[in-house]
């Protein structure tokens, strides 16, 4: 040791030469800079608020909103408070996110797998779709679907019927639906529950077949029965109402998906799926060629090779970037306000405009999207852990 640990003689040169001093000093400087920047901006905000004679606070959320909202999951009247209006917006955002993630996963995976197809047309279609959609801004696509595609549908008095099951017009899309909201929620819950149960039953069957060599018929029958029960619940338990055209235009019964919702969902799904398709393609390409060849040499045909050998390994590469695509989709739903879909951002803009409290409303907005994205990450991390390579 060059200097005394008692610190009798303070050796500046030695300290400046000490690597540990600089490591700590840099961290302290960084923290100080961050702190100074933050306090500058917050101080500035505070000064401006004081100058306008206004205090930061959220009590305005309890005041009546006074504006009406086109569609809503929960009951909402114009004299309800602002927080309830924001909840309506959040509900609309969530329906867009949930349906969007589900459909994006299906379409994106299909398009990604299709790019490996030996069928010339399927392969080309997949490549053209990705190339076209991925390179056009989402906002343009929203306007395109809203004005050019769904705007070109006929007015209600000349609406198009689809197989007697639904209608299309320039107000929206009408589909068969459960007669009450409670039944619809139960039906969706039954579908998700049945899917999870079937998945675990099938895993159990595979395990038994591997470990004991038994046929696993009992489990197969159980899955089939489960499927039949689910089908029975869906077909007979939902008390379906089918939309019916009204004389002179318009529709009664069924569920109306507004044109704003359908256009937003379509463009978000098509846009995000193009990125997902590339992720899936990259994932599949990351599986070494030897895996394909080994599986083929066992006599498995291409479909089974993809399903049982390649895709499970590709998932390890696919899942992490899928997380960010889902988050992108969630955040991009805020663009739907450009085509008048009353989602969270749209309601929030009206709120801050009406109350003159942009800072508070944006804090609420940012927290909402942050929590949504963190929840998605939480789920995807669990899923990621499940598909990672398990060392034995």
């Amino acid at each position: 040791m060059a200097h005394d640990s008692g610190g009798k003689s303070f050796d500046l040169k030695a300290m400046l030469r000490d690597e540990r001093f600089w490591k700590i000093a840099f961290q302290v400087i960084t923290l100080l800079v961050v702190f100074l920047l933050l306090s500058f901006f917050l101080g500035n905000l505070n000064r401006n608020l004081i100058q306008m004679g206004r205090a930061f606070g959220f009590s305005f959320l309890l005041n009546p909103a006074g504006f009406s909202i086109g569609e809503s999951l929960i009951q909402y009247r114009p004299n309800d408070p602002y927080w309830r209006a924001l909840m309506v917006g959040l509900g609309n955002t969530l329906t867009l996110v949930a349906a969007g993630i589900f459909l994006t996963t299906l379409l994106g995976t299909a398009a990604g797998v299709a790019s490996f197809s030996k069928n010339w047309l399927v392969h080309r279609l997949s490549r053209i779709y990705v190339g076209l959609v991925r390179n056009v801004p989402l906002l343009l696509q929203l306007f395109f679907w809203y004005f050019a595609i769904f705007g070109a549908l006929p007015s209600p008095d000349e609406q198009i019927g689809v197989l007697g099951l639904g209608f299309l017009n320039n107000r929206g899309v009408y589909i068969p639906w459960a007669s009450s909201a409670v039944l619809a929620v139960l039906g969706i819950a039954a579908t998700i529950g049945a899917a999870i149960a079937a998945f675990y039953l099938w895993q159990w069957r595979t395990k038994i077949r591997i470990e004991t060599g038994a046929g696993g018929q009992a489990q197969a029958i159980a899955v089939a029965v489960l499927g039949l029960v689910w089908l029975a619940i869906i077909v007979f338990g939902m008390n379906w109402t089918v939309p019916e055209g009204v004389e002179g235009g318009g529709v009664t019964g069924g569920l109306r998906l507004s044109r704003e919702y359908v256009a937003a969902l379509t463009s978000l799904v098509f846009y995000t799926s193009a990125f997902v398709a590339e992720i899936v393609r990259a994932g599949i390409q990351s599986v070494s060629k030897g895996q394909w060849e080994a599986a083929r040499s066992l006599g498995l045909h291409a479909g089974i090779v993809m399903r049982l050998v390649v895709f499970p390994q590709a998932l390890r590469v696919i899942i992490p970037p899928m997380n960010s695509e889902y988050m992108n989709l969630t955040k991009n739903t805020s663009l739907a306000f450009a085509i008048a879909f009353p989602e969270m951002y749209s309601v929030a803009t009206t709120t801050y405009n009406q109350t003159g409290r942009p800072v508070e409303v944006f804090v609420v907005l940012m927290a909402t999207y942050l929590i949504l994205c963190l929840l998605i990450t939480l789920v995807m991390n669990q899923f990621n852990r499940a598909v990672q390579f398990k060392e034995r």
Partner: protein
Amino acid sequence: MRKWGLLAAALGLTMAACGGGTTTTADGGEEGVATAGGSRLDVVKDRGQLLCGVDGGIPGFSFVDESGTYSGIDVDVCKAVAAAVLGDAEAVEYRRLDSTERFTALSGGEVDMLSRNTTWTVSRDTSVGLEFAPTTFFDGQGMLVRADSGIEGLEDFAGQAICVETGTTTELNLTDQMRQISVDFEPVVFQDADAAYAAYAEGRCEGMTSDKSQLVARRSTLPNPDEHVLLEVTMSKEPLGPVTINNDSAWFDVVKWTTYGLIQAEEFGITAENVATFEGTENPDIARFLGAEGTLGTDMGLPNDFMAQVISQVGNYGEIYERNVGLDSQFELERGQNALWTEGGLMYSPPFR
């Protein structure tokens, strides 16, 4: 022990190093307060240009043509303020703002004033933190429908869609009116006025609601203007005028009295053409008004002849009205409520004294 000593030394040194930095920030901060505490009037004078927030999409009020030239009543008010403060009606930079951006742009200091068909309401004046200069156009909310739609009143909108622009008083009035007569309608709320009118034009909505003047002006830009009619209802009072930010009375006074000056000039009969002939007038009211006598202008922090500049460069309120929306324009709107008080209208200026 040594580790902590080292940490303390590092902290001390960085503190010392940053000490200078901290004081400079504090100085900068104080300067910031000084500027923020001073008036917008000085900021505009220093800049030599007025930043004016307008809509830019409403013919007759504020419209930007193919060559990038702005015109309309709202635009002329911006020009009048620029002429008063800077002596040059063209020293204006226009910022196009949509209805949701306008108040944040104003409170954030991105524009000096709004002249953007903004309705004067008590909540905007108080809780949103704005100051409303005198009304430059008395309007009412109307409803535009297709002539062949069979809709004759608000009651006919049950189950029908109405397009509306968000962040406007019309959005709220519509809700109130419909609640009053218990009619369930579907609001289709657009952030952008252009998108709202496009959606109405291609049939998404049965009705389009906004201020009547705006509906008349916008109808002229629809594909077949003759197929659309205004319903015979007035859903609200819509006094539209320039707006500044709260707690800056020096700047607010300038905008307020320039606007009043336009009205007062019409009452005096002073126009852009004849303003020069009032030089050396015997009428003390007019002499004070044009700055030949007294210190009305300098007391406000403006050149004493500011109204002479405004009128010679922009004209009086009547001239502005007639060339933009009145009989000299394609809209041919009657003066109606917007006539001078001496002619049965609501335009009235307090005395310039």
